[in-house]
Every structure is written in structure tokens, then in C-alpha cells.
């Protein structure tokens, strides 16, 4: 608005609240706010009236009471005597676990399929197109059910490994793929200090190796820049990566605990539960199809001139993809990729269909059923997902800004 149309300040009249664009927005906002507050108040009032009529109340003290049920997949200490709050935490960690795993594998599937969709190979191209269309156009719920059914119907039960002439055998004699989960050997140190410390020790050695290898490579780059000849670093690198590890394994005595059939189940080794695998795989392959489309769109968004320029410089096709096209495509790929990660986190709530104890199954499932505290449980459940979503979005926004094209 220009100063010409501005009436003098002093002459404010109530009618200006409607007729004057400068004040009208306040009127609108005030009305909107009051209407919203009234309707929320009305709903809350209804809620408490209804609850009072049934003699119920909102009370979170059930969280401190013993949960009373067992959970098969737990990352922290938990027994049936633990509280409902602990059960919820077990579920939260399980949700985060499956979401993290599925994000990693979905990205791998998606990038592979997206790149292969643009391959020169007609058959592979068509196959990937079929994969993408089939998974994008069928509900994830049906995929979860189908993959879970495949898992329990196709893989053998532990029972079939038993007997003199079993119908199923262990893979290479050390791993078992059953419909209850996958059992793989568990490495451990014969003369170690116990699981956790040993793990930290290995981690420390690996971190040391990483920095060692980086120093070697940096030195090689310096020499290359000074002389134009890059010294051979392959053997040194291999030595730095594997030498300390091997020495450590020899000193402490690396052994593997091979799973074996004991009683009803396989015992020993590492068990990756069937429900976890089912929901993990289903989410990965479903979301992978969406990521593949993003990747394809991202690659196609990079102008052809870039590929041609790289080709003119004599770069090999594989390296053109990894050094020239993909880094530029990432800017286009990252934002939808993140929303796919969010979708994975939210879709992991379908874990209840396969019996995986995520937060929807513990807090929003068994705890809700056993305590009857539906409103409290669902509110907490939504709060958790909301927090995770906002956190992921925040982290990603920071990253997005960091890689944004720096334009002048």
C-alpha cells in the first residue's frame, strides 16, 4: 500500500476492522483464533463429560505399573516384571532399529534399481520398471502380509533340521535360515574381557586403523601433488586395516559360537528374528521402489551435457556416474529421499501385523489392551512419532542447507 491511500493515523473507526485491509487481517485472525479455541474447548469439554459419565479419567500412573507381559525382541533389559514405561522404551528402540535398518537397505535397493532403470540393457531396464511399478501400485500392507507369508511358508521350521535325514540343512554348516529367524555365528574372544568391552576394543582398533589409513592416503596425495606420481598405497592400507585386527584376534583368541539345534530352537550365535526380517525386508523393498523413482528422476535431471563433458575428458562410464552425475543428482534426490525415510519410520508401525514388538505393538497394542488406557497410550504413541518425524526433518534440513548449491 502506498502512502497516498493511507488515511491519517488518528481516525480509527471500528468499521475499519472490516473495510480496511490493514486492520482486516487482525479481525480475521481474531475470529479464526476464537473459533478454533471454542471448538477445541468444545471437544475437550465433550471428552471430559464423556469420561466423567463413564467414571473414567486421564491418568498416566499405569506407566509405572508392571507390564506383566514378555517381549521377544528387546535391545535393553526387560522382563515381564518391568514397568509399562520400560515396555514402551523396548518398543521405541525396536521401532528405531527397524526404521534404521530399512532406511539403509531401502536406499541400497532404490539406488541400484534407479541406476539400473537407466541401464543400456533392455532386459534389466524392463525388469526394474516392472519392479518399480508393481511395488508402487500395491499397498504396503499387502506387501507386508505377502512377504511375511513367504517368510514363514517357504523357509523351513527348526523342526525340519532335526532327525537323521532332515529335510533342511544349515547353510555351510554354520548358519541356519528358519522361519523363526536367521541364526548366524557369533564371534567372541576366548581370552577377552567379556562381550561389551571386547566390542569396544575392536571398535577402537578399527577407528585407529581408519585414521592411520587416512594419514597414509593424505601423504600419498601430497607426494602426488608435488611429484605427479602417486606412490602405491594398497599394501600399506591393507596392512593398516587388517594387521592390528589379526594381531588382536590372535592375542585374544577369536572363536565363533556356531548356532546349533537345542530343544525347540537353535541356540547360540546371533539370532535375527523372523518378524524383524519380514518387516525390514518388506519396508526396504517397498520403499526401494519409490527411492528408485527419485534416483531416476534425479539422474535425468542432470543435464546430458555433463555426461558428455565428462566423456570428452576421457572418464570411464562407471566413473562418470559416480563422480559426475550422482553427486549432482543428489541435490534433487535428497529431499524426497528424506520424506521416504520418514515414511519408513511411520510405516514401521505395520510391524504389529507380523508380531514384531515395535512401539505400536507394545505401547499402542498390548499395554493399551491390558490397561484399557486407550487415550493415554495413543497420545503418547502419537507424541513419539511426532518427535521422531520432527527430529528427522530438522536434521535433514540442516544437511540440505549444507549441500545446497552455493550460488552467487
Amino acid at each position, binding site marked *: 500500500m502506498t502512502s497516498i491511500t493511507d488515511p491519517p493515523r488518528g481516525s480509527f473507526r471500528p468499521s475499519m476492522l472490516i473495510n480496511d485491509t490493514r486492520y482486516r487481517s487482525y479481525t480475521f485472525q481474531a475470529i479464526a483464533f476464537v473459533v478454533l479455541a471454542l471448538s477445541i474447548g468444545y471437544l475437550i469439554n465433550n471428552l471430559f463429560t*464423556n469420561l466423567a459419565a*463413564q467414571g473414567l479419567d486421564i491418568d498416566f500412573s499405569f506407566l509405572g505399573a508392571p507390564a506383566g*507381559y514378555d517381549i*521377544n525382541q528387546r535391545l535393553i533389559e526387560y522382563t515381564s516384571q518391568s514397568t509399562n514405561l520400560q515396555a514402551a522404551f523396548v518398543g521405541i528402540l525396536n521401532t528405531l532399529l527397524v526404521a534404521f535398518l530399512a532406511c539403509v537397505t531401502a536406499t541400497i535397493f532404490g539406488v541400484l534399481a534407479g541406476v539400473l532403470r537407466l541401464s543400456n540393457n533392455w532386459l534389466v531396464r524392463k525388469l526394474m520398471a516392472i519392479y518399480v511399478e508393481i511395488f508402487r501400485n500395491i499397498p504396503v500392507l499387502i506387501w507386508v502380509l505377502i512377504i511375511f507369508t513367504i517368510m514363514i*511358508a517357504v523357509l523351513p521350521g527348526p523342526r525340519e533340521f532335526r532327525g537323521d535325514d532332515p529335510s533342511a540343512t544349515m547353510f555351510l554348516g554354520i548358519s541356519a535360515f528358519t522361519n*523363526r529367524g536367521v541364526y548366524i555365528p557369533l564371534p567372541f574372544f576366548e581370552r577377552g574381557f567379556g562381550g561389551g568391552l571386547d566390542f569396544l576394543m575392536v571398535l577402537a582398533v578399527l577407528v585407529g586403523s581408519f585414521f592411520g589409513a587416512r594419514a597414509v592416503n593424505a601423504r600419498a596425495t601430497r607426494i602426488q601433488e608435488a611429484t605427479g606420481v602417486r606412490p602405491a598405497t594398497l599394501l600399506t592400507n591393507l596392512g593398516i586395516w587388517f594387521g592390528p585386527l589379526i594381531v588382536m584376534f590372535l592375542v585374544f583368541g577369536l572363536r565363533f559360537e556356531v548356532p546349533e539345534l537345542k530343544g525347540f530352537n537353535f541356540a547360540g550365535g546371533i539370532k535375527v528374528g523372523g*518378524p524383524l526380517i519380514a518387516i525390514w525386508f518388506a519396508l526396504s523393498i517397498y520403499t526401494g521402489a519409490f527411492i528408485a523413482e527419485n534416483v531416476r528422476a534425479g539422474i535425468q535431471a542432470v543435464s546430458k551435457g555433463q555426461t558428455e563433458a565428462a566423456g570428452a575428458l576421457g572418464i570411464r562410464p562407471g566413473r562418470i556416474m559416480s563422480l559426475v552425475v550422482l553427486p549432482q543428482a543428489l541435490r534433487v534426490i535428497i529431499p524426497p529421499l528424506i520424506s521416504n525415510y520418514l515414511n519408513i519410520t511411520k510405516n514401521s508401525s505395520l510391524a504389529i501385523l507380523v*508380531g514384531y514388538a515395535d512401539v505400536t505393538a507394545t505401547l499402542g497394542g498390548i499395554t493399551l489392551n491390558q490397561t*484399557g488406557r486407550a487415550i493415554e497410550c495413543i497420545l503418547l504413541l502419537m507424541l513419539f512419532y511426532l518427535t521422531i518425524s520432527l527430529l528427522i526433518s530438522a536434521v535433514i534440513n540442516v544437511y540440505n542447507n549444507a549441500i545446497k548449491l552455493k550460488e552467487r
Partner: protein
Amino acid sequence: MKKTAFYGALAVAGLAASTASAATLDDVKARGVLNCGVTTGLVGFASPDANGVWNGFDVGVCRAVAAAVLGDSDAVEFVPTTGKTRFTALASGEIDVLARNTTWTFSRDVDLKFEFVGINYYDGQGFMVPRDLGVASAKDLDGATVCIQTGTTTELNLADFFRSNSISYEPVPIETNAEAQQQYIAGACDVYTTDASGLAATRASFENPGDHVLLPEIISKEPLGPLVRHGDNDWGDIVRWSLNALIAAEELGVTSANVEELGAAPTGNPEVNRLLGTEGELGAMLGLEADWAKSAIAAGGNYGELFEKNIGENTPIGLARGLNAQWTDGGLLYSPPFR
């Protein structure tokens, strides 16, 4: 599509008058239909057949109540509920009575504010295992993988049982009975545990029922019965005495075959007369017709008939009466007198 707005308008306009929370009996009569919560499908207790007609033991109770209140055993709307939704459905008034093999427990009665009107089936939690596993007792189940139908008391009982016997197990919580069966058959779990009646029903639906055995241990008491909301005692009475009428009818020898005849005129047995309304004012006291119990019994027969027809030994489910026999036959069924 503009339905929401329309509904909203209607709610604001005229129908807001119905906000005064009327007694359930009046609601049901005004509606002309009884809303009865049942399971989403458990053969023998409540399941829709290929034509969508609900059948089963719990369904029989619903039909009896509908017949007693409305005089028509088909005036029932069956609302399928899951373990998660059943209590809210009842609390929010979506259903008038919940007849969904629900265990009568202290906390459900007291804390969740429901009124269990009686017990229509005395059950207990059992275990089913494949015969070739060679397990004879639940105490041999150390390390087993156990499929549980989630949302029931079974999860808690199971945890208690294994803890008190200091043996370990791996629970696999399953949403529906059909999916639990799928997992159990495929060998993804060694044991399936739920109420013994449910196990029998499940086993009956298997291709080779003989390949599976029910273990002798019954690890809990599961008195199953219909329930209503706290606070409407008149309605609770109606459901309670409809159930009792079925039980008493069996004790008194009143069946769906002879109820017309016995109810036509007073007989020699005064209790039968009071039950069937040919003597006394019991119906009026409940606010129902005099022949309320007659209609309830005629709907599907007395307790024994319902049992035999839906879950008895001649059905695929093949449950023996056991605890659910009349007290005169050594069971626990004992209807208070109609007087």
C-alpha cells in the same frame, strides 16, 4: 461427499435432542435393533458364514437377549470387535452388550467400569503342540516359541506361568486367530496358546486335527461372559437374566422344541411357569413382555442346545461339557432361582 457437513448440520439442528443419555433399554427399543459386540471370527463362538449370517455360541446369547427385549432374534446388529477395540466400543455406547469370550477379571470389572452379568463359558488357558514334538506337559516347553493371540489375558497368564516355573520361552504376539494358525501350522512357533475352547475350535479347523494335541495343563481360570457398561443396572439385569433364563431352561427341561407348548398354559412346575411368564410378573419387573424368556429360549434353544449346536461334541469343535455342565450334573452352571 457432502455428508460430513450434512451430518454436522443435522447434529446441530434436530438430532441434538438425543443427547440426553437415555437408558439402554429405551435406546434399544427405539432403535429396534440390539448392537452386540462379537469377535471378528472364531468358529463356534462367533463367525459369519458364507452368506454373512453370524453363527456361534456367543452369537446365541446375543440373539437370546434380542429376542427377550425385542421379540425378534434377528433384530441384532453384530459389531465385530478386536481385543483392542472391544472395551472402547462398549464404553462409547457403540454396542449395548459385549459377548466376545471376554474374561471376567477384577480390573476389567472395577477399573474399566464394566459389569459382567454372568458366565456363559468356564474356560482356561491351554496349550496346543504338534503331536510329533513329543511334548507331554507344558513344563517341558523350556525354550519353546509360543504364539499368542494378542490383546487378551493370555499374554499375562503365559508370562506368569513361565516365570513361576522358571522356564524360558519366546512369545510371538499375533493379531488375529487366522494369522496365529498360519504361523503355528508353518512351524514358526512350537506352541499355540489361548483359551482351551479356542484351541479346540482352531484344531477342529485344521486339515489333520489328529496331528495336534492339547497339553493337560490349564494354566488359568478364564470365566467368559457377556458384559455391559457400569451404571445402567436395569439393562444389566435384562442381559443377566436372559442368560440365566437359558441356563435355568436347561435345568428345568425347557427346550426350543417344547417351549411353545409349556408356555401356552401354566404347567405343574411353578418355576417353569414363572420363567415362561404364565405365572407372576417377572417380565414386567424387567420392563419386558411377559413372554420374554420364552422368546429368548425359542430363539436358539436353551443353554444346552446352544452348546450342542455350536461347540458340542457332535460339532467339529467337539468340546465336552466339563465345567459347563449343570450343577446337577457336576458342572458349575447354577442359575439363581426365578422367583
